[in-house]
């Protein structure tokens, strides 16, 4: 079957997924700081002043109204907890935590309430909610607006974690996340918003827990997360010139993790590089390295290589931030080190 596509940005893909899900299910609502913006200001009754701090939710309030696209006070515990309570009593809220670094002010509601209610209540509750949140360095946004931190949430039972790397994945995974009956944290790298790609038209869902091979090869397996997929594709081009064909595995969701896709690729290539923009200790990089060494050790021809941010906060100065973020060159170097 040929699916019609058009070229669109990552930002447009997320906006489209939200629009389609709001239209599809009256129980879906959006809430967050400035998701429309300008609430109660004359002229903005059914219009948005911002449509999200980076314009991702632009236009939705015009279509769905302020009863379903709710600007919130800067009270992350209050409104994320409200999303949990609303999800447990029949809505399907999509709450926006503007930057993931703000999790410090609302983690109890995510971790002790949203993630645990179902289990603590013996399965007699469900919490179908999504928290969309921006991640990632490279925006010169410094120490409190630039982290990734998806490993923190992936560690927590009860949560699902999703990190898209392309516009089509963003659309399909967000639709799946909103329709999912469990709480999902959906991480959007802010440097991806303007990338373009082919976007399937209409209803499009990517099943959670399914990895995607972004490039096939048999020289080495590169497991890359989020924006690191794009950098790994650049590195793969350079390596192809050297006669090295890497296979890029994009897990797309970290919990659940598609273990088998990663293991199958390593069994084929015998080499593993994990590329993760998050801090290195107790990270997805170490988790995936442990997965492969415990379950496919005999297939490895070299020690796994981990390409990650350093164990520091994100620095401000552009020259320092560029040192912090893994680069295509570092990825290529790590691949060569496995050969």
């Amino acid at each position: 079957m040929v699916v019609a596509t058009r070229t669109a940005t990552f930002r447009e893909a997320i906006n489209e997924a939200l629009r389609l899900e709001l239209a599809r299910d009256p129980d879906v609502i959006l809430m967050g700081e400035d998701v429309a913006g300008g609430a109660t200001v004359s002229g903005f009754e059914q219009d948005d002043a911002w449509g999200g701090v980076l314009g991702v939710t632009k236009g939705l309030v015009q279509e769905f109204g302020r009863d379903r696209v709710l600007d919130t006070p800067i009270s992350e515990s209050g409104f994320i907890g409200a999303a949990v309570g609303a999800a447990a009593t029949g809505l399907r809220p999509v709450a926006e935590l503007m930057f993931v670094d703000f999790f410090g002010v609302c983690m109890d509601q995510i971790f002790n309430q949203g993630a645990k209610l179902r289990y603590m209540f013996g399965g007699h509750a469900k919490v179908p909610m999504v928290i969309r949140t921006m991640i990632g360095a490279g925006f010169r946004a410094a120490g409190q607006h630039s982290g990734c931190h998806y490993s923190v949430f992936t560690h927590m039972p009860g949560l699902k974690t999703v990190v898209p790397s392309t516009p089509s994945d963003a659309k399909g995974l967000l639709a799946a996340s909103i329709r999912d009956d469990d709480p999902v944290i959906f991480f959007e790298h802010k440097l991806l918003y303007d990338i373009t790609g082919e976007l399937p038209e209409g209803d499009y869902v990517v099943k959670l827990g399914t990895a995607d091979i972004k490039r096939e090869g048999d020289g080495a397996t590169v497991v890359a997360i989020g924006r690191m997929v794009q950098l790994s594709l650049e590195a793969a081009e350079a390596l192809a010139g050297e006669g090295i064909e890497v296979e890029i595995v994009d897990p797309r969701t970290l919990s659940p993790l598609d273990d088998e896709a990663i293991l199958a690729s390593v069994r084929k290539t015998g080499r593993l590089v994990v590329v993760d923009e998050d801090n290195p200790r107790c990270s997805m990089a170490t988790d995936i390295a442990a997965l492969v060494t415990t379950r496919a050790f005999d297939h490895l021809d070299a020690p796994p290589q981990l390409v990650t941010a350093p164990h520091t906060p994100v620095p401000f100065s552009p020259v320092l931030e560029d040192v912090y973020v893994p680069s295509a060159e570092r990825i290529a170097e790590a691949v060569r080190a496995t050969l």
Partner: protein
Amino acid sequence: MELTSDKALWIYDRMVTIRAFEERVAKLFADGRIPGFVHLYAGEEAVAVGVCAQLNDRDFITSTHRGHGHCIAKGVPVAPMMAELFGRADGCCKGKGGSMHIADVSRGMLGANGIVGGGPPLACGSGLAAKRKGSGAVTACFFGDGAAEQGTTHEAMNLAAIWKLPVIFVAENNGFAESTPVGYHCAASNIADRAASYNIPGVSVDGYDVVSVYEAAGEAVARARRGDGPSLIEAKTWRYFGHFEGDQVTYRTAEQSAAYREHDPLTWFAKQATDRGLLTPKDLEEVTMGAERSIDEAIEFAEKSPLPAPEETLTDVYVSYR
């Protein structure tokens, strides 16, 4: 709203059932038959019962770590409650929540909460869902004087006020946040005074007087159902037991406790209701006997209930994973 005989009977029955449940739990815990932590509600019965007497089956409540009384007042049966405290398979949370997370969403009881101040944001959520769906449901949010100092409580009251959510906030001021007196931990003279900050009605009532609580809750619930938004009720009360079972309660004097026990909310209401002809001595006796019998049966049910199967450890984390 004038109390009817039926309502008075319901109120007395719920209060006596809570008291009987908690006194038996204290003994069971002391005998080592209930594991973990338990926080008992005895002394505070008039608050949960006075508020829940204004709610219906479709309404919701959020609760605290001291949640047994809220459950019983909202209509959760005592047998699965007791089985839950025993950690048994027939517990209302299949033995996975225990005393601190006891819940029955089907009866609108959104869970006891091990986090002080954990509940108020959730109450905004059930209020938001009710408003969006037009169900008419009201959510009563119980929290203690300790939780009055949590940011979540303030965020939730503000959010409920700006969104005009059908929520009533009920501060159960029992005088102590664990061992720390309210006069120390609270800068306000009355927790209810804080309602002014959120531009909502706030009232302090005698939390020992179930009729006062019932009347204040009636106004707040009516306001919420009209779509006029939240209210704050502070009920000043006293817990008979310690913060948790095992607490030696060194921070209160025996004289204080004795004085409160002298004005017991159950005996006070029994006298009021019989004086006003709402209840007869026979009613009182039947309620007491019925409550004792229901707790006996609950304990028997809990003891006969199987232990959870080991594989249950791994279920109910997700609706579906993968």
